[in-house]
């Protein structure tokens, strides 16, 4: 066995760093509500001390209790939106890549090209100006914004896998379409999709938190880290903890997720088309005509 290269060692280091950074907000988000206990009586706004470890927030609630509750909506909405976008993108992308009917591919892809041209936050704000989406609505919106790019990636990956000689051999052997599409093409796409899911989750976390900060999809006094940052800003001079703690947790969550996925999936990136470096949400947010 050759000794691990310097790059591999750096990757292990970054992986450990990512785990360390992401674990605090993630544990708080998932287990926090269990330990939060019953809400205490409301006291004066923006006070420090008085039995409140991190002081009180803009309506006099205990900040620590809000912190314990505030991570779950961010994490769950982001996970749901990511899963939902693949739920739509996977079948669409697979059909586009494997169909031999050109018109069907055009019909499915062209509208998505157009959707790619609209900035994601703009789309979310547009919808928010007429509807008042709740948490489910926000997850749906963020998923919708991610579908076009996810479909393109699924299609590109599947088309590459479907062009391999192995597929030709399977086809000549008379295997069923299902076994071909799911058993071979689907399986060979897994690594690329895992890498894409990591960058997509980072982007989704960004979008979910930003939308919540701008008041989309959340109640004005919701227990949500992003909402806490927004609402407690007025008391930043008197009681910074109500803003700083949730802000640091959001920073740790997004940073850690990105570091973790980047280190875990280094080497399994798609080598083609110079995508490796600019990981993230909107790498590809423009219609590109196919050559």
């Amino acid at each position: 066995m050759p000794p691990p290269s310097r790059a591999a060692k750096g990757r292990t280091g970054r992986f450990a760093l990512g785990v360390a950074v992401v674990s605090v907000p993630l544990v708080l988000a998932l287990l926090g509500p269990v330990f939060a206990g019953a809400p205490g009586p409301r006291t004066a706004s923006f006070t420090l001390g008085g039995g409140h470890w991190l002081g009180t927030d803009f309506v006099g609630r205990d900040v620590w209790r809000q912190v314990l509750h505030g991570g779950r909506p961010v994490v769950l909405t982001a996970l749901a939106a990511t899963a939902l976008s693949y739920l739509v993108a996977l079948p669409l992308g697979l059909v586009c890549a494997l169909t031999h009917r050109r018109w069907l591919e055009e019909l499915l892809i062209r509208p998505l090209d157009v959707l790619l041209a609209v900035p994601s936050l703009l789309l979310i704000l547009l919808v928010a100006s007429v509807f008042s989406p709740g948490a489910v609505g926000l997850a749906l919106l963020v998923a919708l914004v991610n579908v076009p790019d996810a479909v393109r990636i699924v299609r590109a990956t599947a088309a590459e896998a479907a062009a391999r000689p192995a597929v030709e051999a399977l086809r000549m052997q008379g295997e069923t379409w299902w076994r071909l599409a799911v058993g071979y093409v689907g399986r060979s796409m897994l690594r690329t999709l895992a890498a894409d899911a990591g960058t997509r989750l980072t982007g989704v976390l960004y979008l979910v938190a930003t939308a919540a900060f701008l008041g989309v999809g959340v109640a004005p006094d919701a227990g949500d880290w992003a909402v806490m940052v927004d609402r407690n800003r007025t008391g930043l001079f008197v009681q910074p903890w109500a803003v700083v703690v949730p802000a640091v947790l959001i920073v740790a969550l997004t940073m850690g997720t990105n570091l973790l996925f980047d280190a875990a999936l280094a080497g399994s990136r798609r080598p083609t088309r110079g995508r490796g470096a600019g990981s993230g949400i909107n790498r590809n947010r423009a219609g590109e005509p196919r050559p």
Partner: protein
Amino acid sequence: MSGLRSFVARRLLLGVAQTVAVVLLVFALTEALPGDAAVALAGDQPDPARIAAIRAALHLDRPAHERLADWAVGLLHGDLGTSLTSGRPVSTYLADGFGPTLLLAAITVALLVPAGFGLGVLAARYEGRLVDRLVSSVTLAVYAVPEFALGVLLVTVLALRLDWLPPTAVGYGTDLLGHPAALVLPVLVLLSRPVCSLSRLVRAGMVDALASPYVAQARRYGVSGAKVRYAHALPAALAPAAQQLARTIDWLLCGVVVVEALYVIPGLGTVLLNAVAERDVPVVQGLAVVFGVLTVVLNLGADLVTHRLVPRAGVAA
């Protein structure tokens, strides 16, 4: 040559289609309200007089396709409609918010290019060494952080604890150039994500180029290291970077909305957020069309530039 021309024609056609689609989408999203749109838009104040006023202002008694046609014809003449809440033309809203946003965007882009390329070249120059690992890790980490969380932490440390910079731009109105200190934090926060993505792309492009046979050949001829880097390897990293720069517009738009809310800057983002909060549909529509068309045009430009730089790759994204 005919290949290039047909590519440009196809790309322009797609741009036109996207513009039309943006207009249609904006109209459909805001007009496709369930039930009575006027009641929904009146929101918190559902008194009959206000509902009637909204109905009259939006011409809701007329069929949707006629309203769409009127609106689209108005857009072509530069008439974006009038606000529901104030009765002022939407174009005056745009004119009011345009200055601060343009200033922020211009400064950001002006600093983004040297900072992004500088960091990318620096990391590629010392590939695998400490500088590279540091730059790569920091850009990777900062890249993912939402602007509002970073911004609020910077305010706490730099403005409240150390008292170096003003925490917000409150009280300066639209005269931001007269108070450059108030611009430091907003621009810093706006730069955070695009700089990271741009420098990572430049680094990747240059590392690829430096490992390529033509660079090895140039070295064998005794071409100096600096010349190889800047005259031969850097141009190879330009094509993906040009595209990334256009993609950045999308981020800048997200960033501008957040940053203007955070630092209380009266720009287009603030206008948009206020209009969303007040359900002022014509203003939201007007701003959305302007932002959407801007994005389409900039992406179109970037694709054409990229095609010029790397004609054989089609549109490599």
